[in-house]
């Protein structure tokens, strides 16, 4: 990085204006989240009469308490954890060995298989045949169907393969002379070497799992299988779209608005907890497929 240059007056003003604008942007990025948080902690009366705009009005946790009492909320929360953890682990278990094998020149048919995988990035059958295929495989309304059917994508395989290709082949050769076979080389040498790339792929998978709703909505019919995002869609989106036309409800310490806010806040907490850990990857710049020594 450049050392701090000495600026002229005009340039210093430029810097100040830039900083002010960026501050505004940053606040804009955060504001909606702050807003729903405050909304969720305001009284039902304040929430439905639109008094809240920055800080909670008539501070109360009633809405949160109400949401927390809902067993379906917790079931969907637990489901999301299940889908995220098993889904990410399944993805890694499939992606890492495949990418390792594809990174080796001695693999026969490497180009063909690489194309076979990459082709799916440019052409896929689309929603309906994919859906019908899952139906034929009897994976509708199945937990494991959700885990398996979305375990892989070509991008992650290629990302991981590129990383493995960037690892110096002498590590493999040294391990081979030391008597390691391919499984051992992968497990004891390449996986430890590839930790940053694995973390990246795991992160991409986990975020997609945590945030995705579409296919869970399409495939899962049983209420106690649905993940959080589908629960959110049902409670926050569908209810709101109908209710807000119908108008507000009864005399409670919470209102539809504050409940909505509480559900959103409670569901975003894990993301907010994990975010500081992962964002340092991104503030450093992209390191996807980065080379280690």
């Amino acid at each position, binding site marked *: 990085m450049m050392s701090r240059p000495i600026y002229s007056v005009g340039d210093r003003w430029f810097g100040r204006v830039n900083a002010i604008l960026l501050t505004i942007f940053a606040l804009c990025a955060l504001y909606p989240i702050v807003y729903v948080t405050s909304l969720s902690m305001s009284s039902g009366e304040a929430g439905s009469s639109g008094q809240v705009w920055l800080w909670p009005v008539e501070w109360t946790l009633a809405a949160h308490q109400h949401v927390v009492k809902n067993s379906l909320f917790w079931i969907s929360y637990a489901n999301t954890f299940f889908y995220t953890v098993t889904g990410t682990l399944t993805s890694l278990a499939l992606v890492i060995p495949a990418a390792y094998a594809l990174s080796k020149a001695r693999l026969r048919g490497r180009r063909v298989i690489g194309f076979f995988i990459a082709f799916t990035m440019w052409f*896929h059958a689309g929603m309906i045949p994919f859906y019908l295929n899952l139906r034929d495989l009897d994976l509708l309304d199945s937990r494991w169907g959700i885990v398996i059917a979305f375990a892989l994508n070509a991008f992650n395989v290629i990302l991981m393969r590129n990383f493995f290709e960037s690892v110096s082949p002498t590590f493999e050769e040294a391990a081979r002379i030391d008597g390691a*076979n391919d499984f051992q080389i992968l497990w004891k040498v390449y996986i430890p070497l590839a930790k940053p790339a694995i973390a990246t792929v795991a992160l991409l998978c986990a975020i997609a799992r945590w945030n995705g709703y579409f296919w869970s909505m399409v495939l899962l019919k049983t209420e106690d299988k649905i993940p959080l*995002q589908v629960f959110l869609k049902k409670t926050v989106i569908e209810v709101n779209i109908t209710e807000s036309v119908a108008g507000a409800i009864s005399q409670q310490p919470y209102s539809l608005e504050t409940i909505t806010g509480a559900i959103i806040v409670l569901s975003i907490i894990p993301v907010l907890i994990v975010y500081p850990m992962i964002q340092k990857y991104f503030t450093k*710049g992209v390191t996807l497929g980065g080379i280690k020594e």
Partner: protein
Amino acid sequence: MSAARQSSILKDSSLLQDIRRDWMLYAMLLPAVIWFAVFMYQPMAGLQIAFKQYSVFKGMQGSPWVGFDHFVTLFQSDFFWRAILNTLMISFYSLVLASPVPIILALMINEVQSTGFRKTVQTAVYLPHFVSFVIVAGIVIALLSPGNGLVNNALEALGLDRTYFLTRPEWFRTIYIGSSIWKEAGFDSIIYLAAIMGINPALYESAQIDGATRWQMITRITLPSILPTIAVLFVIRLGNVLEVGYEYIILLYQPTTYDTADVISTYIYRVGIQGARYDIAAAAGVFNAVVALILVLVANKLSRHFTRTGVF
């Protein structure tokens, strides 16, 4: 020396020998290959349904062929044309309005000298990317709520009428693109920031000695240096114009806004998944996928032309 012996010398080892020696590699690859075959290629075989009169009772194989009937039906349908048009419009507006934002953001972030401030800004603007579409839609709905949403409160305070934006077709694109910018612009700036980081610092130092202002350095050094990145990403976007965020649209649209909001994928979803007209929806999907593939290939050609390195 006999011909057979000659050829065995020319070949280092036979396929079978290689597979036996490296069987573990093939074993590692097998699960993924099976996965792609089952979940990506098998559905491609299922595309035939687009050319059949599908009946649940007869199944995919038993249903009779109807050739291009479904395509004819589609192209005679105003709704399908509306979906194509909406897809293109949303893509076009995103391309023009949304894609410059991350570039500007990256340029601005790059001008920040203090590491602490820079990290803070980055942390803040990347955050929305990690918020799910459902939550974003929830927040949008809350903010725009006609009864007590912030936006309408503000309008009222300014003496304007309350509007239920989400039921008004003329507002849909603005809402969709605006909230997409909020969600993704920060995160999308990462790739441009990375490109900016790759610029040789000596360029700036010599420009500084030549007396360039910061503005001049941005326009004469930074922007031209990241132009290849901008070009490649622009071309990729062009190739993906048919890919609009249907998962997000489904959350935001209502029958009253279909006029501007219904895109090809949402049309497929409604007709196929919700309406169970699999054959006609699959035909729309085939059309979409084929056009998308052509666009992507053209875009890749273009990008090769611009940068001599293709996207793939």
